[in-house]
């Protein structure tokens, strides 16, 4: 389904769209308040960009260095070329330990690889322990946002879901009560877990360690209690030195939620004595994205979600409308690199206003990349007939000033004189859900010439 079609389904509930829009704008606002209080914020963003760009330009070296140090630390390192191999590796580690109950903290990579269904097919129980992820897991939905997985759910919906699955009492959607019940439910899961899976926010080449950031403490509750810890990371998570965490941890939470840092920034290096620690390093299309000069900067992404919170399209179309693991502006430049045909409408889900690039903590030129993908997509994938024809027509009109002026005159007259039923008729998508402005009597060109005359 095209993004616009999926978005129109989300838009059938206008009240919910407005609520969704406001909820995300609230997060964007918190981000603004937080970053404006940081002296040298723009310097910090430039550093984030520069360190990531350097790392990608020497990626094979840093991956090798990271691996060697991690092995020295007693960690077992695995490499997966694609999602399938990743799932197989994780499965085989779990199988070796006869693990049946697994707790998992947030990891977009394991979402991307569809790890849960793979493990469930072998009878394993895999529990997402981040509250938002647990909510969408119970609802059998994918996350709709990378930081706020259940942002599309109202508290009343969560209330119903918990009543059905956790046996809670009806509470009118009281977040305090629901969170307390989730804590109890997930505490049990942590106590029983045979293995813990986490994502990786940053992997440090010079120490072989990695950092996992959470607000809830779920990654730590899983990793420190279970005898086996498997951490899954994309190759782009590498940073050269530990001191650069100073840059990225300052950027990440402020951009994500406006917090000065996440509650827990856990630095894992060596396993607990007697326990096992594994790292799975995954490519799954990333080296291919690295080969594209116009798009490789998309690999700088530290998954803060700021571009989603600010995007006027995302806020009004919801994360699920993107039908991709990573939704929103950043997802729309990552996904076409994986499957151009499937995700061909995503780069068009943007006004190209550039707000995503402005808030990006590592200065990815997201809106320019969206534009560049459009150039490729219109050449390589079939476009709707109406779009093709109207683009051709527009091209002709814009190329001749006299013709442009004639069409403008007709359009201005029409907007003043035609009845609303005609102006807002079905073929005019601009008239959908909005009144068009009254056409001015003169064009800018006329106004400018008259102004000169009157001077």
């Amino acid at each position, binding site marked *: 389904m095209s993004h616009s079609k999926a978005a129109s389904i989300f838009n059938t509930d206008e009240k919910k769209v407005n609520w969704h829009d406001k909820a995300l704008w609230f997060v964007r606002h918190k981000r603004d308040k937080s970053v404006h209080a940081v002296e040298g914020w723009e310097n910090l963003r430039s550093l984030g960009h520069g360190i990531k760009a350097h790392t990608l330009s020497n990626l094979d070296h840093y991956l090798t260095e990271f691996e060697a140090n991690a092995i020295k630390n007693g960690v077992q390192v695995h490499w997966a070329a694609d999602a399938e191999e990743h799932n197989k590796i994780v499965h085989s580690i779990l199988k070796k330990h006869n693990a049946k109950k697994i707790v998992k903290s947030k990891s977009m990579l394991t979402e991307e690889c569809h790890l849960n269904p793979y493990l469930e097919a072998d009878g394993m129980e895999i529990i997402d322990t981040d509250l938002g992820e647990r909510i969408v897991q119970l609802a059998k939905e994918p996350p709709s946002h990378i930081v706020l997985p259940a942002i599309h759910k109202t508290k009343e919906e969560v209330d119903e879901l918990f009543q059905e699955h956790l046996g809670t009492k009806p509470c009118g959607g009281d977040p305090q009560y629901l969170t307390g019940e989730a804590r109890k439910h997930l505490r049990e899961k942590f106590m029983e877990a045979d293995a813990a899976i986490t994502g990786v926010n940053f992997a440090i080449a010079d120490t072989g360690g990695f950092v996992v950031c959470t607000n809830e403490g779920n990654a730590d509750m899983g990793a420190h209690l279970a005898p086996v810890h498997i951490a899954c990371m994309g190759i782009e998570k590498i940073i050269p030195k530990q001191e650069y965490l100073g840059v990225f941890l*300052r950027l990440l939470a402020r951009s994500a939620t406006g917090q000065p840092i996440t509650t827990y920034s856990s630095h894992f290096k060596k396993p607990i004595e007697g326990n096992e620690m594994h790292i799975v390093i995954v490519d799954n299309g990333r080296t291919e994205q*690295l080969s594209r000069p116009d798009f490789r900067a998309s690999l700088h992404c530290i998954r803060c979600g700021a571009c989603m919170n600010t995007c006027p399209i995302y806020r009004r179309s919801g994360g699920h409308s993107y039908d991709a693991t990573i939704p929103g502006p950043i997802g729309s430049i990552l996904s076409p690199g994986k499957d151009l045909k499937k995700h061909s409408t995503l780069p068009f889900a943007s006004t190209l206003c550039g707000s995503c690039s402005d808030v990006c903590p590592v200065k990815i030129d997201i809106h320019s990349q969206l534009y560049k993908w459009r150039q490729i997509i219109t050449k390589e994938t079939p476009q709707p007939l109406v779009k093709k024809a109207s683009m051709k027509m527009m091209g002709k009109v814009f190329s001749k000033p006299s013709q442009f002026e004639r069409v403008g005159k007709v359009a201005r007259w029409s907007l003043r004189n035609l009845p609303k039923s005609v102006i807002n008729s079905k073929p005019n998508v601009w008239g959908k859900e909005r009144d068009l402005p009254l056409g001015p009597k003169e064009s800018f060109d006329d106004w400018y010439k008259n102004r000169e005359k009157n001077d």
Partner: protein
Amino acid sequence: MIGIKTEKKMTSRENILSRAKANKPDLLELPVINVEVFADGKDLLEEFTKKVEVVGGNVVEQNVSETIFSQVSKMYPDAKVNYATLEGAGDFNTVSLEALKKPHELENLDVLILESILGVAENGAVWLSDGQLPIRVLPFITNHLVIVLKKENIVPFLHQAYPILAKKDNDFGVFISGPSKTADIEQSLVIGAHGAMTLTVVLK
């Protein structure tokens, strides 16, 4: 064996590394961090206290007239299971870590007192690592977490924290900023997700 060509399938490791090597751009320079551009002249103690409170924690001064243990006991009068890693804990400790068969048995821990060697003013985070953590799950599994920190060990930004940590061999370490929290239900902040439900920093 010389002269014999062996055809071996590339492993995924070799495959990924060779593709990364082939597809990467020309080497770009690593930027230099000039920490002076971040200096904001804020008072460290004031900023640290403000940030701990912003993230949902409390900051108190250590009472000179009593021990830290009696001070903390008064803060949590209903606590039954307590543990402190500090010297002289004596009766305060109701559990013996040596007697534990597995860390899961700490499930009912009410109050935990730990010492931190480093605090960060800009985000109210305190550092805990294996040196201060006899069992890693301690600061997460406890209901209430109390962390003792010397005022002179507060640095302005993370940039000043990492050089200090680089000198130490941390097998596991964590920056903790406030109690555990979530806003996953309609963006309403709820304190007490999976980790500690309160966090108090005692400054000495």
